[in-house]
C-alpha cells in the first residue's frame, strides 16, 4: 500500500469516525430522552400518590435534602426497552467509531512511517481517541453510567471536527529534533494522560451541573435549562468519585510524561528543564492537578471547589497544547 493511499485512508476513516460518534451521541441522547420522559410520568404518578401521604412527611423529605428525583424505574415497559435499545446502539456505534478511529490513527502512522503523533492534528486525534477509549473502559467496568455518553460525545465530536479541519496537516516526516525513540514514550504518555484529563474535565463540569441542579431541587425550585439536564446525569457523589478515579489514573502518567520529556530534552537540547512555554504550562497543569488531589482530602475544599480545580486544570492543559503552540514561540513549536 502506498503512503498516499494510507494517508487518504486515514482521512476517510476519521470522517467515518466523526459520523459514527455523532450517531452514537444521538443514540445515547435518545435513551436519555425516553428515560427522562418515562421518569417524568413516573414522578407525576409518584406525586399523585404522595399527595395522599401526610404533608408532614413531605416536609421531612424535602428538609433532608435527599435526591428528589427517584432512581430510574425498573425498566420493564416497552418504551423503556426501546430506550435501552437506543443506548445499546449508542454504545455499539461508539465502539465501532473507536475501532475506525484507531484505524485512522494507525494509517497515519504507516503513511508517514513514524509514530502517529508528530503534529498538532495527529496529536489531537490521538487524544480524542484516548478520551473515548478511557470512557469505554469505564463503561465496561461499570464505573460510569451509559447516559454520560450523550454529554461526552458532544465535545468529542466538536474536538475531532476542529482537529480535522482547522489543525489538519498533511502526513510528512519529522523535524530532526523529534527524531528520537523518546517521541514514542513521552508523547504516548502525554496523549494517554491528556485524554484522561480532558475526560475528567468534562466529568467535573457535569458534576458541577448536577450538584447545582440538586441544590435547586432541594431548595424547592425546578431547574431550568441547562441545569434541567442534571436530572439525566448520575448522582453528584458518583460523578465526583469517577472524576477522582480518572485523575488519579492520569496524574502519575502525566508526571511520567513530564519526566520522560525532561530526559528527552536533556539529550536533545542539553538541559532537562528550561522553562520553555510548553514546559511551563505542563508544570502549571501538573501543579493544578496536584492541587486537586490535595483539595479532595482537605476539609472545606471537597466537592464543588475541587471540581472547579479539575476544570481549571483541564483549561491549563488546553492552553498547554493549543494556546502555547499557536501563539507562543518556544522549543516545542513544530507544527
Amino acid at each position: 500500500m502506498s503512503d498516499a493511499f494510507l494517508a487518504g485512508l486515514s482521512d476517510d476513516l476519521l470522517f467515518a469516525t466523526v459520523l459514527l460518534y455523532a450517531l452514537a451521541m444521538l443514540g445515547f441522547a435518545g435513551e436519555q430522552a425516553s428515560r427522562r420522559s418515562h421518569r417524568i410520568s413516573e414522578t407525576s404518578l409518584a406525586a399523585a400518590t404522595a399527595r395522599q401521604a401526610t404533608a408532614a412527611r413531605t416536609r421531612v423529605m424535602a428538609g433532608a435534602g435527599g435526591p428528589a428525583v427517584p432512581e430510574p424505574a425498573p425498566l420493564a415497559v416497552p418504551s423503556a426497552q426501546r430506550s435501552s435499545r437506543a443506548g445499546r446502539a449508542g454504545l455499539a456505534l461508539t465502539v465501532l467509531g473507536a475501532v475506525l478511529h484507531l484505524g485512522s490513527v494507525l494509517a497515519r502512522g504507516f503513511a508517514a512511517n513514524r509514530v502517529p503523533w508528530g503534529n498538532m492534528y495527529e496529536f489531537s486525534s490521538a487524544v480524542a481517541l484516548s478520551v473515548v477509549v478511557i470512557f469505554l473502559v469505564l463503561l465496561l467496568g461499570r464505573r460510569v453510567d451509559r447516559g454520560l455518553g450523550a454529554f461526552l460525545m458532544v465535545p468529542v465530536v466538536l474536538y475531532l471536527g476542529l482537529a480535522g479541519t482547522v489543525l489538519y496537516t498533511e502526513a510528512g516526516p519529522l523535524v530532526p529534533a523529534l527524531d528520537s525513540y523518546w517521541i514514542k514514550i513521552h508523547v504516548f504518555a502525554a496523549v494517554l494522560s491528556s485524554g484522561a484529563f480532558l475526560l475528567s474535565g468534562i466529568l467535573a463540569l457535569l458534576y458541577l451541573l448536577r450538584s447545582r441542579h440538586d441544590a435547586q431541587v432541594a431548595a424547592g425550585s425546578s431547574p431550568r435549562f441547562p441545569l434541567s439536564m442534571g436530572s439525566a446525569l448520575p448522582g453528584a457523589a458518583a460523578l465526583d468519585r469517577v472524576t477522582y478515579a480518572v485523575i488519579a489514573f492520569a496524574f502519575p502518567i502525566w508526571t511520567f510524561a513530564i519526566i520522560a520529556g525532561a530526559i528527552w530534552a536533556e539529550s536533545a537540547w542539553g538541559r532537562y528543564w528550561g522553562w520553555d512555554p510548553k514546559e511551563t504550562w505542563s508544570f502549571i497543569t501538573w501543579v493544578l492537578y496536584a492541587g486537586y488531589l490535595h483539595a479532595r482530602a482537605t476539609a472545606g475544599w471537597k466537592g464543588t471547589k475541587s471540581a472547579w480545580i479539575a476544570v481549571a486544570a483541564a483549561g491549563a492543559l488546553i492552553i498547554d497544547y493549543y494556546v502555547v503552540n499557536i501563539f507562543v514561540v518556544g522549543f516545542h513549536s513544530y507544527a
Partner: protein
Amino acid sequence: MTVTSDRDAVRLSTAPEPVAPRPERRQSLTAPLRRTWRQLTSMRTALLLLFLLALASVPGSFLPQRGLNPVAVQQYFVDHPTLAPLLDRVYAFDVFAAPWFAAVYLLLFVSLVGCLSLRVRLHAKALVSPPPAVPRVLARMPESARWESDVAPEQAIEQIRSVLRRGRWRVARTDLALSAEKGYLRETGNLLFHISLVALLIGIALGGLLGFQGTVLVKEGDGFANTVLAYDDIKPGRRFDADGLVPFSFVLDDFQGTYADDGKALTFLAKLRWSGEDGGEPQPYDLRVNHPLVVGGAKTYLLGHGYAPRVRIVDVEGNVLEQTVACLPQGPTFLSTCTIKVPDAAGEQLAFEGVFTPTTVQDPETALVTSVYPAPDHPALTVLGYRGDLGLDSGTPASVYNLEDRSGLVPIGDGKTPQKLLPGQTWDLPGGGSLTFVETTEWATFQVTQDPGKQLALIAGVGMVLGLCLSLFVRRRRLWVRLSTPGGNHPSGRTVVEVAGLARSGSDAFTAEFAGLSDRLRQLAPPRPADAAPTTEEDR
C-alpha cells in the same frame, strides 16, 4: 499505637489530624511562632501555595525570558519603552529566577518538609506497631458480617490468622480477636513521592550552583579544546569553578545536513574526532541531534549550523591570504550574511560585506540574489568591497560578524553593485588585488553542559512516579475478626463469628474484597445450618 480507642481504629491514615488551635498561654514567646509554623505546615496553606506557584509561572510563559531568549527581551524593550523597564523591575523577564517566585516555592517546600517530618515519624510508628485493637461494636463498621458456627474458637482463630497472614495482612491477636491491616505501602509511597520532590529541588539547586553551560561555533576543519576561554558564550553556575571543566577536545571534520523537498530539515550530522584528558589517539564520533557526545560529566550537543565560504584574498603586493568566514543564517533557506575583514592586507585594509546563498536564484531584473533551498546546491557569494581603515586599533571590542565602524572605509567600485561569485570565481578588484570564492564549507555550534545535580534529579523523578503509583493505587484497609462463645467455652457450644472491615479509599473494590474474605472465613468457620443465610451488611 499502644492506646487504641474505637476512634483510632477508624482513622485509617497516619496523616496528622487537623488540630483545633490550642489556647496558648499569653506569656509564651514562642506561641506566635508555633502558631505560624502550624499554619504554614497545614494542608490548606500548602494548597494555597500550590495555586500561587501555578499563578506565578504564568507570566513566564507569555513574556519573553532572558534565560530563554535574550534577543526577544531586547526587542520587547524596543517595542514597549515605557512598560518594559517597569516590568523588568519586578523581574518579569526573569520570572523563574525572581525572588518572589523563589519565595513561593521555598515556602511551599518549608511547608512540605514540616508536614513530612511529622508524617514520617507517624508512619514509622505505625509500621512497627500492631494494627489497632478491635472496636467494641463491629456491626457499625462500613463492612461487617456476623454468623454462628460450631467450630472450636481457639482452633478457628489460629486458622483465620494464618489465612490472613498468607494474604499478606499484618495481624495482631488478642484472645479470640484479630486486628489486621494491609496497604501500608500507600503512605510509604506518599512519603516517597514528597521526599523525592525535595530531592528534586536539591538536584536542581546543585545544577544551578555547580553546573556549567557554554556554546561555541566551530568551522569544518577547526578544533575545540574545553577551556572557559574557548567558548563564545558561557553560563556558569554561581559556585562553578573553572577547574571543574572536564578536559577534552575535538576536531570537526565534516558537517552534513539533509533536507526534504520542501526545505524542512531531515537530519543533521557532525563528524567529530575527540580525545579525552590523556590526549590519546582521537576517536571518531558521529554527533547527531538527540545523540550528544559524553566525556566524563560533560555532554556536547549539536545546537545549530551554517555556512562558511572559504575565500582567498590577494592584496596589492601579491600576498595571498586565506580565510574561512562563518556566515550567519537569516532564515529557513539559509540566506546568510557574511562579513570578511582583511586587516593584514598590505597597503590599505580590505573588507567585504554581503550574503551567501546556498541555492542561489538571481532576479534577472533587479539582479538581487536569494536562496530557495537550505542545501548548497548552487552556492554563491555576493559581496560589496571596501578599502581603508577597519578601526580595529581603537581598542573597543569589535564583532567579527559585522562592520561596525565604517568611518574609515571607502567603497570599491561604485559601492552599489555587488559582485556575485560562484565557487572558483575571482573578482579582480579595481585598484589592485582580488577576492576568490574558493569553496563552500560549513560550521556547527556546539553546547557543552556539565550538571552535577542531574543524576539526583533523575533518581528523584523515578521516586516521584513510583511513589505516586503506590500512593494512588494501593488501598489501605483494616479487618477485624472476633469470635465469642456466649454459651461459655464448651466444646459443643456455638461460636459467634463477627467480621468487620474498613477501607479509606476505593470502597467499591473493598466491598468485593470483603465479601471474598468473609466467604473464605465461612469455609474456615462454617455457619450452623440454622444460620445458613448469614446476615451481612449488604443484605440489609
